[in-house]
């Protein structure tokens, strides 16, 4: 299958091997439908085609949201699964760093990248996670920890008592519901939190003073690592080569023409941060901040089972809106990057809607767990489907307008493959 990572530089590149996650999926019988182009300008948010689906795995999120497939894989380095999940109103799961092998994943930032799952239900995302998780000898950073059976954790709604989440300690991160976040996003998340309380959780407010340090630290580390990981794309061994009379022009022209401007900017910044004389001030400093963030999360998760925040400070914005303001675009990652810095698992679920533009736009909220504690957050979310009913109903409305014909076909397929709440709803 052609694999271009949305880049001209990998034009016509066909990888000679399967990524471990994909190989595991094939071995467990999955049907691979396609491969959404990463970061493409063509993909739009199914809820409002003039808006972005989120990035960078927006294509996968949009595909699941538009019911073109049941589940999808994406990669999450700083929120690139969770943010599009929030924007597209689907479930987005980021596993603990090392839970899923990175072998075969086009590397962006090696110490931050994970392969994540999209699904239209938590159960589906969980099934997907189960099949791709596990130690891989080809990835020295993959964990040898045993993979629990995530599916056995799911409990159908009917079997739950009235306060099924009794005893679960939920910590709401204060710094994520303050300035800089859309008021409607905040109220959506707060509604979700009240509902959790109704279901029996003990909710407290948690303060993580170092929270805002994560964004600059993340960008320094991610750009540094990715500038290095992108060095291999030089047009010499594979991909598009622009021939030159001598070595430097071959390198220079191939990369100049093969990389888009955003990527070039990131490579320049990352190279700068690693340069002699700057390493201590930037890269080393950022690693120290990372340690602070990691320990602050650990401390908070010793006292709470789950930490909660919005998945993004806003709903999906218009295509082109942030084009000339990269810093504003980066600022949108504030909710998600700390989780990557700490290597923790997180789950994003739709929790409400905001009126905007031509219709409603989904809001997602994020649940962060302790390392390798995916099962805990899943159990928690199995219950959440009850809450999501209102969300499902408005989804139905949407699909009647836009995808009427596909609706029946997809409902059929879903019923055959795996029972999920949405399939049941479609048949109603």
């Amino acid at each position, binding site marked *: 299958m052609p*694999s271009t*990572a949305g880049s001209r530089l*990998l034009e016509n*590149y066909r*990888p*000679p*091997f399967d*990524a471990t996650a994909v190989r595991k999926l094939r071995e467990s019988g999955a049907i691979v439908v396609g491969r959404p182009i990463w970061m493409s300008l063509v993909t739009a948010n199914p809820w409002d085609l003039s808006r972005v689906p989120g990035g960078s795995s927006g294509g996968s999120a949009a595909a699941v949201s538009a019911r073109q497939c049941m589940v999808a894989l994406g990669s999450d380095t700083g929120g690139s699964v969770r943010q599009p999940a929030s924007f597209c109103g689907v479930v987005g799961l980021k596993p603990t760093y090392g839970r899923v092998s*990175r*072998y*075969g*994943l*086009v*590397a962006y*930032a*090696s*110490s931050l990248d994970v392969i994540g799952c999209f699904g239209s239900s938590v159960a589906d995302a969980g099934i997907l996670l189960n099949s791709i998780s596990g130690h891989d*000898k*080809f*990835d*020295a*950073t993959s964990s040898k920890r045993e993979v629990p059976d995530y599916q056995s954790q799911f409990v159908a709604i009917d079997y739950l008592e009235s306060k099924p989440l009794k005893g679960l300690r939920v910590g709401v991160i204060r710094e994520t519901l303050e300035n800089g976040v859309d008021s409607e996003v905040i109220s959506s998340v707060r509604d979700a939190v009240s509902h959790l309380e109704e279901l029996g959780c003990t909710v407290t407010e948690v303060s993580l003073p170092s929270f805002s340090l994560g964004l600059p630290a993340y960008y320094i580390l991610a750009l*540094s*690592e990715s500038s*290095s990981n992108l*060095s*291999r*794309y*030089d047009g*010499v*061994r*594979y991909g598009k080569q622009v021939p030159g009379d001598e*070595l430097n022009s071959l*390198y220079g022209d191939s990369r100049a023409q093969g990389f888009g401007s955003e990527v070039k900017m990131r490579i320049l910044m990352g*190279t700068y941060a*690693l*340069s*002699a004389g700057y*390493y201590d001030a930037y*890269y080393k400093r950022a690693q120290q901040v990372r340690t602070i963030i990691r320990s602050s999360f650990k401390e908070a998760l010793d006292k709470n089972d789950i930490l909660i925040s919005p998945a993004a400070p806003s709903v999906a914005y218009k295509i082109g809106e942030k084009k000339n303001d990269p810093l504003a675009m980066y600022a949108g990652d504030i909710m998600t990057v700390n989780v990557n810095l700490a290597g923790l698992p997180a789950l994003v679920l739709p929790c409400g809607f905001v009126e905007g533009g031509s219709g409603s736009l989904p809001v997602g909220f994020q649940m962060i767990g302790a390392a390798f504690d995916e099962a805990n957050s899943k159990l928690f979310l199995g219950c959440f489907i009850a809450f999501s009913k209102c969300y499902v109903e408005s989804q139905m409305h949407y699909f009647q307008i836009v995808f009427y014909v596909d609706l029946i076909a997809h409902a059929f397929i879903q019923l055959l493959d795996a029972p999920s709440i949405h399939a049941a709803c479609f048949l109603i």
Partner: protein
Amino acid sequence: MGLPGALPVLNSKVIEYAVKVGLALNCKLSLSSKFDRKQYFYPDLPKGYQISQFDIPIASGGYLDVDLPLEFGGHRKFGITRVHMEEDAGKLLHTGNGSFSQAIKFSPVDLNRAGVPLLEIVSEPDMRTGIEAAEYAAELQRLVRYLGVSNGNMQEGSLRCDVNVSIRPIGQLEFGTKVEIKNLNSFSSVSRAIDFEISRQVLLHSQGQANQIVQETRLWEEGAQKTVTMRKKEGLADYRYFPEPDLPGVTLSEEYINGIRDSLPELPEMKRRRYENLGLSMQDVLFLANDINVAAFFDATIGTGADVKLAANWIMGDIAAYMKNEKLSVNDIKLTPKELGELIASIKGGTISGKIGKEIVDPAEIEKIVDKVIAANPKQLEQYRGGKTKLQGFFAGQVFMASCSELTTTKRTVFCYIDTELVSRST
């Protein structure tokens, strides 16, 4: 190849070898070390970076004992700055005039060895002449062969050598500008290149042009026997080192280190000292201790009680010649140390033509071998006929080496057989 999505995996053998070498070089081991990326662009470097160890090498601060020929200094100790692990790059094959096409000049890149683990051993700037450096390199080769971590063949590229040379006026504490020399393919080129470079720099100094000695990389040209500028270094390259995120750190436990330490063989230096104490000459000592297998053969032979000097002579003389002729290693020849020991004892004791044994198994076999040996050594047969009866031992040895383990008869019987044959043929 540096394909998208490919990840490096650490080969645990390289850690074992690094610890072995570090211990053998009397280094301090880092119980906790890591890998770093050394970043630069070159066609033989597929990822655009090399995985190496920058600031925390696995071993550092050691020394190597070298026995130089007496006229060059005798016994010397050279410091070892560090030993670190890294991955190899590919190989550029410069074909000169592009045999595939006249119009386009290109160099193919061979990526087969890219990613193969290497150990880089850096010495302190302790050597003062080309011969010292060459002997140091030869001793390192001996060491890695002893340890079994490499075959150390420079021709195959299993052992590669770059040198840095600088000079300074007598009395100056600060080192002069150093010049790197590459393309050294043998120990003798190491020696000659260094001596050339020293005289080149001295000449510039003496002409008042010391400022023409710049930090650069020069190539040794074997044909012209001189160093030439390869590329001028524009200051120090910025490799933008940072810790390798795809590989976990390396943690060594005391247990692991002790296990390896216990498994180290007797190193060349120790062996040489022991052989010296046995009364052997330096020439003998150097020969016998050069190859760990030859030394083992020698040790086993004298272990049977054989005379030390005679054993040394046999091994350095006839056996070495036989091995060279037949292109066999000491482990391949059929003669065992025990048998050599007996042979030596027999010759010493003069019992060669001793009692005839009662049992002879397959005399035809022996006869064939004896015939072959006698036919292959007409010179010695002449000498024997001429009265050099001691050559009996020589013939016996040759027969033994060719066939000993196949014979089921007793040694005395064989001797006797040879004895009779030789006697019969000289009449």
